[in-house]
């Protein structure tokens, strides 16, 4: 079989760009996403920052899957609005990716199942060839089409061949043997193919030295933060998109004398986390919506019995089994309100991978200082998309264990009561094995000793004691971040991974002379009312941007600080993150012809 790279004959001038956006699409499970990670590594080595996003189905093989990589001289926090290049292994991938292509974008198409059918705009450059067939005949492994395509892509992006070879080599070094050889051979085939028919360098990116940033996904950053923050016991049950926390900790916790247990279900997971905490270990569990539901009872137990435990909720499209691999931010109500009875809890919402690391350490400290459950609420995009982040600063990490007594401290006490009333509501803790520290820890209402009690006075005091802790904890909860022009009368309020698209939407709006500002909320419960009141007071219209239908953040804000008539919701709930342009567009639509006008209530 002869391979032809059908090339159109326009002369190409490499475009100088500070940013490059590439999609690779094909069938789930056939390794197309590897191309994304190889490219990410290349770009890092020439000093760029990267962001990647994956779009897969809840099945292991087959069905459309794609990944987008964005490389930039600046840190980026979303995949943006458009694509410069598209590697497509089938027609469906072209359907999905081409609407986003820049007018002069590049398409690399695997024509093994026939030439490209889709009609593309005239300036789009299409390179097509039977990549899979080529890999099959020459390398006996059709999956190596990926590496072949990567070689071609690297040419179109103007990347140096040595760099590309180094990255592929590094990547398969450990596997060695056939795997390494096959991939290196595939690269050469790709380069030859590109040479043969003269694939042009369409882009030229600024090349610098490798930057020192880390490429990490949110789930992993939480895992790292957990270990560094002194966490030693983790229990979890597999679930998309939280499994990466389990995976990461299963490999890494044992090195530190810790353990990551795969529980039989999420009920077991949270109760194991509770058990380890009772014994004195910093512990955590992570799951997504369905698992969160099952942890509800354990949550109340941790609160009532005053047990420090960190719960990570990685939100996906609900309700119920929903769309397991898809993005959403619709568990706010659940994490803030779920569970019978009144009890304290803290809900922290990291907005980027850096936050995921530092706020996990904070969560561990808060849990132990205030002896209560602390949620880390993230979303699928933040959990699974990798970001370039500055190296985590280990010197900033503090482990604060609050009123956990040492044996010496305990020895000096005349009386030890696990739930002793105190001015800050926090009682001293002992752990089993300490002499003189006997305690009864219970989810029943109890007196200071931890003995079951229905005494009405005691009850009232215990309820207030627990609630007081949350009020005091609030003073240590992460503050929001402010962006934009202080004088703007149009504001955004949002949380989580929306920070990326919103910041870029603000840039777009600025170019249209719509100055905006933005309050990124990072504590969802308790809310910092002061920052919200100040912000909402200062704007005419506040767009509350969230990936859910009902406006859960907007609801929390109305409940806690009011301002219903200034709040306008921008909501998305189709399983995907916002795009910057879409947010800008919705704002412009809402403001109508004359910008800055007051908007109607959502």
């Amino acid at each position, binding site marked *: 079989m002869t391979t032809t790279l059908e090339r159109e004959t326009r002369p190409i001038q490499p475009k100088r760009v500070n940013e490059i956006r590439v999609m690779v699409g094909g069938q789930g499970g056939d390794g197309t996403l590897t191309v994304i990670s190889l490219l990410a590594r290349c770009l890092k080595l020439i000093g760029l920052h990267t962001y990647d996003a994956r779009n897969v189905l809840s099945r292991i093989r087959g069905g459309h899957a794609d990944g987008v990589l964005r490389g930039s001289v600046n840190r980026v926090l979303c995949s943006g609005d458009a694509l410069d290049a598209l590697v497509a292994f089938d027609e469906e991938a072209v359907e999905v990716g081409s609407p986003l292509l820049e007018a002069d974008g590049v398409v690399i198409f695997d024509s093994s199942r026939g030439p490209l059918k889709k009609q593309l705009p005239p300036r789009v450059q299409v390179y097509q060839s039977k990549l899979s067939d080529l890999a099959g005949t020459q390398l006996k492994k059709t999956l190596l089409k990926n590496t072949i395509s990567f070689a071609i892509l690297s040419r179109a992006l103007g990347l140096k061949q040595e760099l590309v070879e180094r990255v592929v080599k590094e990547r398969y070094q450990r596997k060695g043997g056939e795997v390494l050889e096959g991939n290196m051979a595939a690269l050469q085939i790709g380069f030859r193919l590109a040479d043969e028919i003269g694939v042009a360098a369409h882009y030229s990116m600024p090349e610098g030295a490798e930057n020192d940033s*880390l490429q990490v996904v949110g789930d992993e950053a939480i895992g790292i933060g957990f270990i560094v923050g002194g966490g030693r*016991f983790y229990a979890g049950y597999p679930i998309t998109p939280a499994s990466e926390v389990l995976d990461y900790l299963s490999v890494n916790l044992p090195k530190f004398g810790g353990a990551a247990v795969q529980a039989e279900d999420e009920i077991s997971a949270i*109760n194991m986390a509770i058990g380890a905490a009772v014994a004195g270990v910093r512990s955590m569990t992570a799951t997504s919506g369905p698992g969160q539901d099952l942890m509800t009872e354990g949550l109340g137990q941790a609160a009532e019995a005053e047990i420090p435990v960190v719960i990570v909720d990685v939100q996906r499209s609900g309700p119920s089994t929903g769309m397991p691999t898809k993005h959403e931010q619709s568990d706010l109500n659940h994490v803030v309100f779920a569970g019978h009875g009144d009890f304290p809890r803290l809900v922290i919402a990291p907005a980027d991978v850096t936050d995921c690391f530092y706020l996990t350490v904070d969560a561990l400290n808060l849990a132990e200082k205030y002896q209560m459950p602390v949620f880390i609420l993230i979303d699928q995009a933040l959990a699974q998309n990798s970001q370039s982040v500055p190296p985590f600063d280990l010197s900033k990490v503090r*482990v604060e264990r609050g009123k956990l007594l040492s044996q010496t401290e305990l020895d000096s*006490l005349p009386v030890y009561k696990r739930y002793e009333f105190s001015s800050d509501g926090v009682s001293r803790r002992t752990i*089993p*094995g300490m002499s003189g520290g006997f305690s*009864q*820890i219970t989810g029943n209402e109890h007196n200071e*000793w931890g003995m079951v009690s229905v005494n009405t006075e005691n009850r009232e005091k215990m309820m207030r004691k627990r609630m007081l802790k949350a009020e005091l904890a609030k003073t240590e909860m992460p503050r929001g971040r402010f962006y934009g022009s202080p004088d703007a009368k149009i504001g955004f309020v949002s949380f989580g991974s929306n920070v990326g698209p919103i910041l870029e939407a603000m840039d777009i709006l600025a170019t249209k002379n719509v100055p905006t500002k933005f309050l990124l909320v990072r504590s969802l419960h308790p809310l910092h009312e002061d920052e919200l009141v100040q912000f909402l007071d200062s704007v005419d219209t506040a767009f509350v941007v969230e990936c859910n239908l009902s406006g859960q953040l907007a609801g929390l804000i109305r409940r806690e600080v009011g301002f219903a008539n200034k709040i306008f919701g921008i909501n998305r709930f189709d399983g995907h993150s916002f795009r910057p342009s879409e947010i800008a567009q919705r704002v412009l639509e809402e403001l109508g012809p004359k910008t800055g006008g007051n908007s109607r209530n959502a």
Partner: protein
Amino acid sequence: MPETFPVATPIWCPGCGDFGVLAALKKALAELRIPPKDTIIVGGIGCSGHIHNDIQVYGYHSLHGRLLTTATAVKLANPRLTVIAAGGDGDGYAIGGNHFLHALRRNPSIVYLVMNNGTYGLTKGQPSPTAQIGFEGTKEIPFEPVLMALSLRSSTFVARGFSGNQTQLVRLIKEAIEHESQGKGFAFLDVLSPCVTYNDTYAEWRKAVVDLNADPDFDNTNRSKSFQHILETIVSGRIPTGLLYRGEGASFERNVLLPGSEPMALQDISPEKNLESYKKLLRKFA
């Protein structure tokens, strides 16, 4: 030494079988000289699940049915502790059945005492999975926890006692605690402990119990033979008691924990302590 919580008076009805379990447990702990400060009792929810209030050791009152999974983690966190989970049959075999199964599968070194009365005492006498046919309209064949325990190839200690036979019960509890303390795995002990208020089976049980360990033909090291012997005993209308099976297998904590490492609960987790290894974690992403 600080003064700590005043041991409670049991909440049980006069004559409740659980008094016998409490007495035997106290005796066993004392005779084995297990240091109270290194002992934790994880109670279930139910009348039985109040037992941890009645002994001066560490106590944790779990959620209904969740005592085993909690206790498993306590053990992993600090294998030096003597961990005793103690609850009811509703707690352990109804809502908690899955954790029972998985505790048997994982074989953590903890003692599990079930005060089995065939009913939900604390919620006023509904039939539990072990309720006898006829009790409150029960028509299903009662669940046999000891047979199920035998059916997991990883089980290492399966026993049944009777609150009405203190000598045997103390012996069994001691053997269970020794199994646990020696890190041999999950020591499961079902104790017939009649609910005199809702399901007073004292008389029947006293008649029906048979100590298999007294039978020279009974081999409690052979899983299938023990299974057969127990089954035949049950079918013949008697209730098998004694140490019904004893086997060997790696405990969960042995499988999971880095050999020789300091118990997690006692580790120094200040960041300085591990700075170099933490840096290594970061390098993976650079």
